[in-house]
C-alpha cells in the first residue's frame, strides 16, 4: 500500500500544479498558461500559475501563492509583508516562503506586455529569475499606461475602431456604395449606416425596409458624441472640426417608443449634461431627428470669490454660438457672450451685484433658430475671500459604484441586487459615499444614478 500512497501523492500534486488561467483582465490579471515558471538558483522551479495558488496581479500588488517544487508554498501577500505594485509594474515588498523565508521583489518589474523581469532575492531562496532560457513568467495584467481603452478615440489592439477613429476604413473601403460608419460601444465597427446602393430601385420583393433613425445636431469641435438607446450605449459619432455638427445613424430597431440620450465631452474632458428625448419609431421607416444640440459644458475659475471680484465662467459649445449664462441668486442675472472658432466661451462675471452666499450658474447655446438645453449647474460661493477652484476630478464620484468612471448597467445591477436586502459592509460604504446615505438602497438611490447616467 506504500506504493499507492505515493501514487495518490503524485495525482494530488499533479492537480495542485496544473497551470491555470483563471480570472483575467488588464487591471486584475492572472498568470498566463505556459508562462508560469520562474527559476531560483537555490529554490529550483517556482510555479506562479497553479490552480490552488490562485495568483492575481492587480494595480496594488500580488496575491495568492507560488509553488516552489522543493520548498513548498510562497505567500505573495503575507500579513506582515506582501509584494506591492505601484500600478506601473514596479514591484516592491516581500513574499514569505514557508521554507524559504522572506523573498524581496524590489528588483522585479512587469513590462507593458505583462512579462516579469528582474530578480527576486532572499537569504534562503537565493536569486529567482523570471526570464531565463527555460523560464518565463507572464500575466495578462498590464501597467495602467499600456492598457487598451475602448473610448479613448485611439484604435488599439483588438479594436476595430474607437470613437471617431475608424483606422482609415470607410463604407466604400468595406465594399458599400455610400453611408457612414459608426463605432459600437465595444469598439467594433458598425456598418449599419452603410448602404449597398440600389436605393430607389424597384423590384426586390420581400425584403423588409430597414427601421432607421438618423440623428443630427451639434456638439463641440472634434468631440466624440455618445448615443444611448434606452439607457445603453448604442453608437458613437464624432463632431466636425469647423461647425461641430454630427450625424449618427442607427438601424436594426424594431419600432416603438424609444428613449434616446446623447452626451459629449469637451476638449478638457468635461462631460456635458445628458440630453434625453423620446422618439416614436415606426417599423420600416426612416426617422430623422434633427437639432440634437448638446448643451455647453461649464466651469468656473473660483469656488469662492470675494464680493466685487470677477468670476470667470467658461466652457465649450459649437463655434460662433451665442452663449447665455444664467447666475441664479435671489434675483437671476444674465450675461451673453459668443463662442470662438473652437467653440470655447469665457465670460468674466462681476460679482458686485451678488449677495454673500451660495450661487448657481448654468449656460445654454443658440445658433440660428436652435437653442440647446441648459448645461449642468455648478455652484460657487460669494464671500470676503477668493479661493481658486481645484482641478476637476477625473471621474464623478456620485453613483459610480464600481469606480470605472461610468454610471451604467453595472452600477445599476450592483444596486439592484441590494434593493430591499440588508446591506453588507462594502455596499454600506458605497451607499454612504456615492448615493443618498440613508443606509438602504431604494428608489431615491436609483434616481440619483439615473441623473448621473453615462451608459
Amino acid at each position, binding site marked *: 500500500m506504500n506504493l499507492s500512497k505515493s501514487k495518490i501523492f503524485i495525482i494530488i500534486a499533479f492537480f495542485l500544479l496544473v497551470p491555470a488561467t*483563471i480570472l483575467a483582465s488588464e487591471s486584475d490579471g492572472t498568470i498566463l498558461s505556459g508562462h508560469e515558471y520562474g527559476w531560483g538558483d537555490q529554490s529550483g522551479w517556482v510555479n506562479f500559475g497553479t490552480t490552488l495558488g490562485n495568483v492575481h496581479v492587480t494595480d496594488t500588488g500580488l496575491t495568492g501563492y507560488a509553488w516552489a517544487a522543493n520548498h513548498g508554498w510562497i505567500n505573495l501577500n503575507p500579513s506582515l509583508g506582501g509584494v506591492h505594485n505601484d500600478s506601473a509594474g514596479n514591484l516592491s515588498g516581500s513574499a514569505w516562503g514557508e521554507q524559504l523565508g522572506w523573498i524581496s521583489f524590489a528588483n522585479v518589474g512587469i513590462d507593458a506586455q505583462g512579462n516579469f523581469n528582474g530578480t527576486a532575492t532572499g537569504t534562503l531562496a537565493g536569486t529567482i529569475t523570471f526570464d531565463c532560457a527555460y523560464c518565463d513568467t507572464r500575466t495578462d495584467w498590464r501597467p495602467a499606461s499600456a492598457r487598451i481603452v475602448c473610448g479613448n478615440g485611439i484604435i488599439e489592439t483588438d479594436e476595430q475602431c474607437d470613437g471617431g477613429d475608424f483606422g482609415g476604413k470607410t463604407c466604400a473601403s468595406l465594399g458599400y456604395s455610400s453611408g457612414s460608419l459608426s463605432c459600437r460601444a465595444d469598439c467594433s465597427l458598425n456598418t449599419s449606416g452603410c448602404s449597398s446602393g440600389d436605393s430607389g430601385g424597384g423590384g426586390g420583393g420581400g425584403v423588409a425596409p430597414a427601421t432607421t433613425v438618423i440623428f443630427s445636431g451639434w456638439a463641440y469641435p472634434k468631440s466624440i458624441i455618445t448615443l444611448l438607446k434606452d439607457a445603453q450605449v448604442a453608437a458613437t459619432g464624432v463632431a466636425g472640426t469647423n461647425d461641430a455638427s454630427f450625424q449618427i445613424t442607427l438601424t436594426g430597431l424594431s419600432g416603438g417608443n424609444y428613449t434616446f440620450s446623447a452626451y459629449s465631452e469637451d476638449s478638457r474632458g468635461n462631460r456635458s449634461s445628458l440630453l434625453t428625448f423620446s422618439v416614436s419609431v415606426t417599423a420600416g*421607416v*426612416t426617422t430623422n431627428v434633427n437639432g440634437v444640440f448638446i448643451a455647453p459644458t461649464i466651469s468656473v475659475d473660483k469656488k469662492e470669490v470675494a464680493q466685487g471680484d470677477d468670476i470667470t465662467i467658461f466652457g465649450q459649445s459649437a463655434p460662433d454660438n451665442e452663449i447665455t449664462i444664467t447666475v441664479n441668486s435671489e434675483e437671476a442675472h444674465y450675461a451673453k457672450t459668443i463662442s470662438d472658432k473652437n467653440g470655447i466661451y469665457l465670460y468674466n462675471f462681476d460679482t458686485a451685484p451678488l449677495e454673500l452666499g451660495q450661487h448657481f450658474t448654468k449656460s445654454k447655446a443658440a445658433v440660428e433658430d436652435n437653442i440647446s438645453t441648459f448645461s449642468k449647474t455648478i455652484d460657487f460661493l460669494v464671500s470676503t475671500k477668493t479661493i481658486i477652484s481645484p482641478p476637476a476630478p477625473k471621474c464623478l464620484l456620485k453613483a459610480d459604484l464600481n469606480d470605472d468612471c461610468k454610471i451604467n448597467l453595472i452600477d445599476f445591477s450592483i444596486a439592484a441586487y441590494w434593493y430591499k436586502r440588508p446591506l453588507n459592509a462594502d455596499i454600506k460604504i458605497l451607499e454612504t459615499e456615492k448615493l443618498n446615505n440613508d443606509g438602504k438602497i431604494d428608489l431615491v438611490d436609483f434616481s440619483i444614478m439615473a441623473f448621473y447616467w453615462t451608459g
Partner: protein
Amino acid sequence: MNINVQNTQKNISTKEKITKILCLFVFLFVLFSVLPGVAQGAELYINSTSTTNGEYGLNQSWETKVFLNSDGEGINAVEGKFLFPSDLLEAKTISDGNSVVNLWVEKPQLESDGQIVFSGITPGGYNGEQGLIFSVIFSSKKEGDGVLGLSQARALLNDGQGTVAPLLISNWQFLISPAFPSPTLPIVEDIYPPEEFLPQITHSTTLFNNQWFLIFATQDKNSGIDRYEVKESKNAKSGRWLVAESPYLLQDQQLKSYIYVKAIDQTGNERIEILQPRTPISDYQNIINIITRNTIALIVLIIVLALIIIGYFTRNLWRKKQRKR
C-alpha cells in the same frame, strides 16, 4: 429638436391601435402634496381599452395601461402598487412592452392577489404627457363593480437628489355585467424579437464575493420581455439554458466558456447574444473537456478503474494465498 418621418413606404408591424376612450370615470386626489401652492404636478393615470364606457361583459378581456404625465418636469424614477379586485378580475398578462421605463428595479409583477408592484428608472428622465409604464390584460370573472387604482406611488425628479415630485393619481372605475356585450380583444401580432443588447461580464467587491457575474438588460417594444435565459458552454452545442436574472453569478469563474444570453418576449420571439470566452481554452483542454463531457467515456473510465482496483486486490489475495501455501 425636430423629429420627422421619411419614406413611409411600408409598415410591416401590425401596430397596436388603442381604441379611443369614450368615457372615463376619473377620481383625482393629490398624494404627496408637498407644496400647498402647487396645484398641478406629475400624474400617474390608468387608461383602459373599452368600447363599453368602462362597462364589461362577463369573461371579457381588455387591456389596461398605466401612464405617466411628467407635467413639464423630468421624471427619472417611478414606483408603486397597482391594485385591482381579484375576485372580479384575473390579470392574464402583465407587459412592459414599449414602456418608457428602461430599467426595472422591480419588473411589474403580481406580488399578491390583486396587487402588482412596479419600480423602475428612465436614465436622463422622461418628459412627456403619455409615457407608458406598463400594461395589463384583464379578464372579468364575475358580475360587480370596482376600481383599478394605484397606491404608495412615487415619481422622482431628474435632479440628482431623488426629490419626490408632487403626484396626482387617477384611478379607473369599471362595471361588469352579463347584460354588456363581451367583444373579443384584438390579437396583437408581435413578430419582432427583443432589442439587440450587449451583456457584460464584471466583478465587484460588493457582490458575490468579487466573483465574476453577468449583467444584461434589453427591451421588447411589442409584447414585452417575458424572461431571460443564460447558457455557459465550452463548445457551442453543449450546455443547458437556465432561467436567469441580472446580475447573474457565472458558473465558470475561469471564463473559459461561451456565454449565451437569450431574451424572450411574451409571444416567444427570441434574441440571443453571445459572449466569447475571455480565456480561450487550448486544444488539449478542449479534448479533455469533450472527453469529460462524454457520459459514455466517463462510464467506461469508471469501469476500467474499477477493474484495475478489483484486479489489484485479487492479485494481492492470490499472492497471500500463494505465500500461505
